[in-house]
């Protein structure tokens, strides 16, 4: 009975997602491509783009380098600039795709792993599907300032060497940040990805008032880190928090049952 219940719930969820998520707009799946293989090999994956709308679209496919700053922000660069780039390894059969209304297309993404590629270091790039404006998108404005808005999908592309499989992250520091002008307070956590693959993690902060025993659980913060990189995250604290608190940081990593736990006492 329980299994049937689970099945029905799953069915409803998938149907609901399909109807809401795919029917009325332009969708892309997956949103990240993880390639693996040995130097010298050529590997491929499909990206599915679906146009459930009544409009026709044209997308330009282009690739850029990117890295992530320590606050988690992605920064894009022209292809081939960064050390860990794989922009030059990526290709698609077409540079532009026409996506008529109510149609689906598969785009084959090919990665040619160079013979001299590192067998230990990950590489990355970002494949963009950029909407190209059409004649009818032009502004009907006789005078004034006008903005024409278009949209773009960014698809992460990673190459993970075949032998890389270590999922790990280290908590470097946990600090209360100085009180801001608006009296807001926060706890800053610094992490380091000491594994060998991309680490997707959720960072939780639980605070327990040492006098009253009151517990505060803050909304987890999601992050994604390349191996060998640092990331700083900030948990904003509730307004007017005051007193001595015991803080517990829990880092839950996707693809692993391991947790990382850190503890620190605070006085706010």
């Amino acid at each position, binding site marked *: 009975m329980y299994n049937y219940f689970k099945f029905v719930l799953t069915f409803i969820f998938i149907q609901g997602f399909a109807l809401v998520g795919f029917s009325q*707009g332009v969708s892309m799946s997956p949103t990240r491509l993880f390639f693996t293989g040995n130097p010298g090999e050529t590997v491929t994956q499909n990206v599915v783009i679906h146009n459930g709308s009544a*409009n026709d679209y044209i997308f330009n496919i282009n690739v850029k380098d990117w890295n992530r700053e320590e606050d988690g*922000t*992605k920064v894009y660069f022209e292809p081939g600039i960064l050390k860990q780039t794989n922009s030059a390894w990526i290709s698609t059969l077409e540079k532009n795709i026409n996506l008529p209304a109510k149609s689906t297309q598969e785009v084959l993404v090919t990665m040619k792993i160079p013979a001299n590629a590192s067998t230990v270091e990950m590489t990355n790039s970002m494949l963009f599907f950029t909407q190209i404006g059409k004649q009818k998108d032009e502004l009907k404005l006789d005078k004034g*300032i006008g903005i024409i808005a278009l949209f773009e999908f960014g698809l992460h592309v990673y190459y993970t060497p075949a032998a890389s499989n270590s999922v790990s992250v280290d908590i470097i520091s946990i600090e209360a940040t100085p009180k801001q002008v608006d009296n807001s307070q926060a706890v800053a956590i610094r992490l380091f990805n000491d594994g060998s693959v991309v680490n997707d993690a959720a960072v939780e902060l639980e605070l327990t008032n040492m006098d009253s025993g009151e517990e505060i659980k803050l909304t987890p913060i*999601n992050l994604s880190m390349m191996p060998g990189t640092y990331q700083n995250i900030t948990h904003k604290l509730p307004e007017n928090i005051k007193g001595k608190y015991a803080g517990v940081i829990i880092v839950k990593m996707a693809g692993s049952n391991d947790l990382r736990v850190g503890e620190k006492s605070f006085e706010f």
Partner: protein
Amino acid sequence: MKNILKTYLQRFQESLFLLLPFKSSTLRVLFISALILTTSFAKAQEVATKVNITLADVLSIDSESAANGGAVDFRYETVSDYNSQKTATVPKSLVVTFSKAFDVKVRANGEYFENGINQIPINVITIQRNESSTLMGKSTPIILSTTDQVLVGSAALGLKLQLDLDYIIPKAKSSSTDILGKPAGSYTQTVTYTASAL
């Protein structure tokens, strides 16, 4: 022939240690049948409850999004237009479905709003997330530029998340020569909103 089969059956039964307590052959046959039926039933149960679910990440931008060839207009026709801050709020600038945490960036596709040879720098526009948005995440007002800037960072996954945007031209810009004194006409530029996984 019957005797040969009976001998083989007897040997087979003797080889099954479990059958020794059953003295009569009828009981032994019933026991073996029960074993086979139980096993088959158990297998049937396994198959009936086995459900495979394959989930793929998906990102969708709805066609009802204003960022879909949509336009935002600012008109400067009177003295008070030039001497005040103008805000254009565009509900549903983006309507996004994402099965993972994500962010939204924005960039202009040129340095200027252009009208033939006449130009207005794109940095006259500030964009910010309106509080009415259901797309939540880290967001601060940004001054439009050709660099990709984070409009909403670390947005949580969800269905049909609505991003309502305020486009602002501050008084300091409209009363400056960036806008004031420019020849009358329509100045346009395209901006691109990028959605990608965290």
